[in-house]
């Protein structure tokens, strides 16, 4: 690629010594920056700049740099190759041209240069404004505004007394009293159930043999004891137990 580039560069027209920029490739931030600097030497509005002349300046610049054996970054060379191509297209007769047309490419390059130039100037104008710490100054020793957060503790009287109640309850020696609960013992149930089924020849539900009571605790106790009593009577051959299906009513009668 290098050899090829050099050939292209040698074709580039000579530019008067005075028009040449100082050869310091580090001074530019990339090829577009260099192109913009070269464009500014044309001293015309960027909208009217001659892209062909600009391309020639760029190629000449890179060529000079080559001659001086300066190391040239790859992106400068890529740009040089592209511009050399653009130049040849611009010089070719119109009808032999392909898409995109060289005019379009040249116009796009011009638009890019305009945009970079606009931002460069905008940056300069921004920096020229009255800046804090350079042109205008803030108060040297402001006292500062402070918001001091002050906790405002809240609690309700209920919180207080219930907390105290809980402490007392927690720390008081606990006395456990087993409450009296009415139960039907297994012995009672055996005697009771045997006597009741003996008096009735038909099947009856286990429920129907339980005592009538309002006390749900006693009722549950009686049910449990009577069930076990029924099983015991069946084991002794004194009673029969039947159930039509799962969870159906348990039927009992004397054997």
């Amino acid at each position, binding site marked *: 690629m290098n050899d090829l580039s050099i050939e292209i560069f040698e074709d580039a027209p000579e530019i008067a010594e005075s028009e040449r920029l100082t050869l310091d490739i580090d001074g530019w931030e990339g090829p577009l920056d260099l192109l913009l600097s070269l464009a500014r030497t044309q001293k015309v509005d960027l909208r009217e700049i001659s892209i062909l002349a600009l391309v020639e300046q760029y190629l000449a610049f890179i060529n000079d740099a080559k001659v001086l054996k300066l190391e040239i970054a790859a992106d400068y060379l890529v740009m040089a190759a592209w511009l050399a191509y653009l130049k040849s297209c611009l010089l070719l007769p119109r009808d032999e041209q392909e898409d995109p047309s060289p005019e379009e490419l040249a116009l796009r390059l011009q638009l890019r240069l305009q945009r970079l130039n606009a931002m460069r100037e905008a940056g300069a104008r921004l920096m020229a404004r009255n800046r804090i710490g350079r042109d205008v100054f803030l*108060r040297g020793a402001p006292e500062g505004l402070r918001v001091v957060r002050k906790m405002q*503790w*809240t609690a309700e009287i209920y919180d207080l007394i219930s907390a105290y109640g809980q402490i007392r309850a927690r720390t008081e020696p606990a006395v456990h009293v087993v409450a009296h609960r009415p139960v039907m013992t297994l012995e009672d149930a055996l005697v009771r159930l045997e006597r009741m089924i003996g008096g009735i020849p038909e099947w009856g539900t286990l429920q129907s043999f339980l005592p009538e009571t309002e006390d749900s605790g006693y009722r549950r106790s009686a049910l449990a004891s009577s069930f076990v009593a029924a099983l015991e009577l069946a084991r002794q051959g004194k009673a029969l137990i039947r159930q039509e299906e799962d969870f159906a009513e348990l039927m009992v009668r004397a054997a």
Partner: protein
Amino acid sequence: MSEAPGEDVRAVEAALFASEDGLTVNDLTQTVGEDIDVKAVLEILAGHYAGRGFMLVERGKHWHFETAPDLAHILRRERESPRKLSRAATETLAIIAYHEPVSRAEIEAIRGVQISKGTLDVLMEAGWVRPAGRRETPGRPLIYATTPVFLEHFGLQNKRDLPGLDDLKAAGLLDPVDAAFEALELETAEGDD
């Protein structure tokens, strides 16, 4: 609006405004130039800013602007953020209220749990508890009591307004938590029948 200040006044004013440490007459002369009668300008400025939001003052030969002392409350604003008392603090407060005056060791004995240093601090910050001397026992521990602010906050005329143990018992507040909880569960279960 005031009449337009002269250039000399503007210069001294700006220098004082931007200064970090205050400026002596000498400093000011060096800053704004010898042509300006700094002392006279300082008089004018002191007069101009008297009665405004900030004023020009001299402290140990250094001149500077400072905000008017009567507006200090604007610079340091207190914002109250309400916050509920923690459980530990509530319990501690309750013990002090029921047993005062009471030492820290006694509070811990009643609570059955140690109290952290911050707990009493919070109660004192709230203004509900105050140190009330020392107990004349070995070690002379500090004892704590409640304050009038405490009574006021909780809507109590005096200490006797606090419900007694009998009242607490009647209200079910002395039932151990577990027992109270069980009673509640049983009730619910029966309600389902």
